[in-house]
């Protein structure tokens, strides 16, 4: 079967929604709104994250919602800024009103230096939000045991990190992501730290269901071109995963027949 044909049927289902693109994107850190919209379009992403903030009464923020909705992107509000489960639930409920969606990227990272997710508060919040009918996608460390707990708590997917948010360091958690992917019965979205298309391709080759990329696109020299590069890498990685990668070995295994015809001709 041609990959294009295979690809058409290769939908990712999360909660009540299916996606053709396995590249999810964030809307933060772009220089301007026009570049952001163009880059997100170029990514072909169907799910984009947003944050919520307390309005500054002195300033008017750009309306970034209208162009995202116009381009058919599903919005995934995050709970960034929440320091514990209670705040995260409050943020999710506010986001549900603001964006009229029960989807939420649950993130609780009280430490501003590394922005590492708090596993205890995240699990607590995930249970509460799932019980309230939210489609919960928690941002977590690449902890296989925690991911199984989150699955049992009713999360729609898990979003383990490759490296700290915005670090562009790539997949530093590979061995644990492999275990998470092997054990999960819900989609695994590798989030945070993916700094280049090859990182995204690697995550997809490993069998991740999707990746979420923000910083690497937004801060690139040309965010629109980088967005396209990520889209291609995610497709290539997915195709490689579906095609079935060959195994590795320490010793060489000849690709050509090792006949001795050169010697024989002497």
């Amino acid at each position, binding site marked *: 079967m041609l990959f294009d044909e295979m690809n058409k049927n290769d939908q990712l289902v999360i909660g009540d929604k299916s996606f053709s693109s396995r590249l999810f994107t964030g809307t933060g850190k772009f220089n301007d709104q026009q570049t952001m919209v163009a880059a997100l379009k170029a990514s072909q992403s169907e799910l984009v994250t947003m*944050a919520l903030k307390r309005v500054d009464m002195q300033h008017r923020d750009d309306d970034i919602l209208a162009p995202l909705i116009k381009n058919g992107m599903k919005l995934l509000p995050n709970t960034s800024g929440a320091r514990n489960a209670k705040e995260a639930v409050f943020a999710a409920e506010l986001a549900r009103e603001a964006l009229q969606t029960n989807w939420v990227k649950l993130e609780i990272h009280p430490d501003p230096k590394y922005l590492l997710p708090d596993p205890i508060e995240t699990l607590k919040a995930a249970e509460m939000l799932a019980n309230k009918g939210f489609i919960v996608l928690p941002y977590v460390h690449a902890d296989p045991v925690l991911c199984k707990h989150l699955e049992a708590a009713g999360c729609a997917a898990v979003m383990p990190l490759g490296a700290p948010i915005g670090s562009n360091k790539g997949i530093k958690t590979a061995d644990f992501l492999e275990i998470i992917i092997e054990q999960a019965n819900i989609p695994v979205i590798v989030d945070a730290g993916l700094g280049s298309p090859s990182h995204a391709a690697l995550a997809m080759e490993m069998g991740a269901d999707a990746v979420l990329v923000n910083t690497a696109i937004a801060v690139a020299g040309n965010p629109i071109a980088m967005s396209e590069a990520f889209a291609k890498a995610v497709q290539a990685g997915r195709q490689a995963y579906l095609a079935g990668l060959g195994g590795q070995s320490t010793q060489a295994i000849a690709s050509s027949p090792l006949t001795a015809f050169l010697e024989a001709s002497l």
Partner: protein
Amino acid sequence: MKIHVNEQTLELAENSNIEQLLIYLDKPLMGSAIAVNQEIISRSHWADTILNEGDNISLFQAIAGG
């Protein structure tokens, strides 16, 4: 009457509702969320939630983020 929006005190006409407050503040209705005295008010009740003297209003808005 006086109300407080995100720690700023405002003078608002008596019997104003939430929708009228947002229009008065020139804030977009889509992408906004409101809590009155720490209680989130569902969008469907913005037009029929009348504000009272001294209410503490928290106004939130969707912004870019990862």
